[in-house]
């Protein structure tokens, strides 16, 4: 089944991901790609508490994720790959086959402008998304499965 959702969400693992997306997709694994979380046992334990025991949870920094991505893609179970920010997803995509990216939650921060209720972007982040899209990655925003997808060109 492979990775069925590459999602950028600054909350990483939370109800919307585990229940909203994970349940209807019947996910068997979640790959959480984040350099900080990968280096912290405490952070990993925190996120592990939000995942049901039948779902395998992988923690990886970007370079490890670049190496593991093909193995995750060949997993017979459907899976979700999460990053907390655009930069991490873009770095991952430089060395792996990412065809589609979901913007699921990039919330307010200084320097960001609101694009959707759940998407706020700085000029640098907008450029990073345009650059990523130019490589052939389809990018759209959708917070929950039943939501209306908003394509990048309509978002910016």
């Amino acid at each position, binding site marked *: 089944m492979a990775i069925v959702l590459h999602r950028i969400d600054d909350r990483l693992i939370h109800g919307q991901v585990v229940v909203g997306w994970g349940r209807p997709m019947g996910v068997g694994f979640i790959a959480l790609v984040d350099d900080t979380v990968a280096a912290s046992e405490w952070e990993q334990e925190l996120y592990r*508490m939000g995942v049901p025991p039948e779902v395998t949870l992988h923690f990886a920094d970007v370079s490890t994720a670049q190496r593991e991505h093909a193995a995750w893609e060949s997993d017979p179970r459907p899976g979700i790959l999460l990053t907390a920010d655009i930069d991490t997803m873009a770095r991952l995509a430089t060395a792996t086959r990412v065809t589609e990216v979901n913007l699921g939650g990039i919330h307010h921060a200084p320097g960001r402008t609101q694009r959707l209720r759940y998407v706020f972007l700085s000029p640098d982040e907008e450029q990073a998304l345009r650059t990523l899209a130019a490589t052939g990655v389809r990018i759209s925003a959708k917070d929950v499965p039943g939501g209306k997808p908003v394509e990048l060109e309509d978002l910016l």
Partner: protein
Amino acid sequence: MSNRAPRGIIVGHGEFAAGLASAVQQICGLADVFAAVSNRDHPAGELERILREYADNGAEIIFTDLPGGSAANAARRVMRDHPKLVLVTGANLAALLEFALGERCGPATAARTAVEKGRSAMDSSGGES
């Protein structure tokens, strides 16, 4: 309306927290026991900052809807530097009423009692075929 700091914080998705706080108020008239916080539209760091502020002002227990997720994660981060703070996950109205109306005791005991009450309120009936 009292200006006392809330003893309990309810945090959850959508209107979960506001709905439960409103239900407590409707049942027993207590408007100042709980503060209600929605995790909707708050970045993780902002949610943590809000909870930390309540904890700094004397909140004893954080009630969340789900055991994992942004609300519980934010609470656990605050608990690292507020070790006396107690987290109750899977909160329901029965648990909150017990906390609001029960005998005043330490937060750990109050949380345990509230959890027992909340758990015992869950039941199902009917559905015979």
